[in-house]
């Protein structure tokens, strides 16, 4: 299962037929494992990595560190849930360190993101403080280096 998932993580469009041949296992087994992984939500979705800036769509992203007063029974979970339901919010993590939640927010302008933080995030009950860090340049995202790939420098024919 691990090898199948690794191949799909590298290229989600690799066909079960090709995977079966790559791993030397029957195609039905590959299809069954993928289906099981989808059912058990080990495979959540097959997404595409897009360089939006290159596509001419200038989006603004910011990390928002959020300080939260935890509550009995629920800890930080209820506050996290209030935050992650906004579509503007791309990721939410509970983290160790000076703050409690790290949130990634997406917007069409810095102003839009700043207003979202001021009006929606900072005003959630038990949120005590926020700190906003706008992303200026993305070098690598989810294991994908967002620069032109290095050219193949090998000689064309070598023994």
């Amino acid at each position, binding site marked *: 299962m691990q*090898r199948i998932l690794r191949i799909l993580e590298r*290229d989600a469009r690799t066909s079960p037929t090709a995977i079966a041949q790559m791993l030397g296992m029957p195609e039905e087994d590959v299809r069954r494992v993928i289906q099981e992984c989808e059912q058990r939500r080990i495979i959540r979705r097959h997404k595409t990595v897009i360089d939006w800036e290159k596509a001419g769509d200038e989006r603004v992203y910011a990390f928002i560190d959020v300080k939260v007063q935890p509550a009995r029974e629920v800890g930080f979970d209820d506050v996290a849930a209030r935050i992650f339901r906004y579509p503007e919010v791309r990721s939410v993590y509970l983290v160790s360190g000076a703050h409690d939640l790290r949130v990634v927010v997406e917007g069409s302008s810095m102003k839009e993101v700043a207003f979202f933080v001021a009006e929606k995030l900072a005003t959630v009950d038990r949120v005590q403080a926020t700190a906003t860090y706008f992303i200026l340049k993305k070098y690598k995202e989810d294991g994908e280096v967002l620069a032109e790939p290095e050219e193949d420098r*090998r000689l*064309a*024919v*070598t*023994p």
Partner: protein
Amino acid sequence: MKPRIAHGVQSLPSSGIRRFFDLVATLDDVISLGVGEPDFVTPWRIREAAIYSLEHGFTQYTSNAGLPALRTAIARMLAQTYGVEYHPESEVLVTVGVSEALDLALRAILNPGDEVLIPEPCYVSYRPCTTLAGGIPVGVPTLAEESFRVRAERLAAAITPRTRALMLNYPNNPTGASLRRANLQAIADLAEQHDLIVLSDEIYADLSYAAPHICLASLPGMRDRTLLLNGFSKAYAMTGWRVGYACGPADLIGAMTKIHQYTMLCASMPSQQAALEALRNGQGDRDEMVAQYSERRRLFVRYLNEIGLPCHEPDGAFYAFPSIGSTGLSSEAFAEQLLREERVAVVPGNAFGAVGEGYVRCSYAASLADLLEAVARMERFVRRHAASPARTAVTATSQ
């Protein structure tokens, strides 16, 4: 004017690959399956370790035999992986790639006229290096129907009173074949019986897919008659660093070190620092690359068979060695026409010895996308050149 080039060099055939390389350089849009090196660049942690060592002034000669820490790490790795013990002080020599180690080994052991058994097809330098060292290369054929595994009987048939050494290279370039324990044991018995030294080029050892690699020196009695040659080029994608090593009994390694200290002096410091990092922390990167080669291998070999280029499933390295019999072309004609007509570069099998005629070497150290595109182009080519049905049938039955 007197001839300026020494007779031995004058008569040395130039590499068959060279002419082919010049032709590739004149064409655009070529997918090359002709490359004998990984398509990965050296893992970053290894490159970074070399940069760090330069920043900190490690720019000097090292001791002739190599950095003590590197020799110790090599000995420890061999002991852990294969259970073969070498003394880092006297039985390990760090060289400028396996190429240098091979040259040193041949020069250290051959007297003029000594014969060296070389299973073929084989790496392009075995014959010329033997000749340059004053020896006589004696080719021993390996066959597709025997999965290109050298048979002890065939070796035995080639042994004469002048036979001094045997060259082995498994996993093999260009065929991808590996030897099973029974094969190896039969060869070891033969070496013992005829008192042969075995030069075992195990540069592709880590790229073994079908079964774990068996180190020849790990067989009973073989450690003291084996020169184990290995390096970092293939497993750690470090071809351009030029760093390898030889391990063996102290008298042989001592003799090789003597030549090495007068000719090469030592392998380069940054490369040795990089190699040390590869052994200390590079295993994860290596294993991931090996897994990817193995996956491409199965897919690629399956497609080659489907398009009419029959090919055994290689056990190791990153080469497929399909038969081109269905086209009726010689391997050089096949390679040249495939390149001109479909812009795919492969290496003609006869570059690896006459017995390689009728085959081509295709490297699957290329991205999946390139491999699939190359197969599509090769399929068009094979269809266009399919020999007459009668001829195809004959070839098919001989496979």
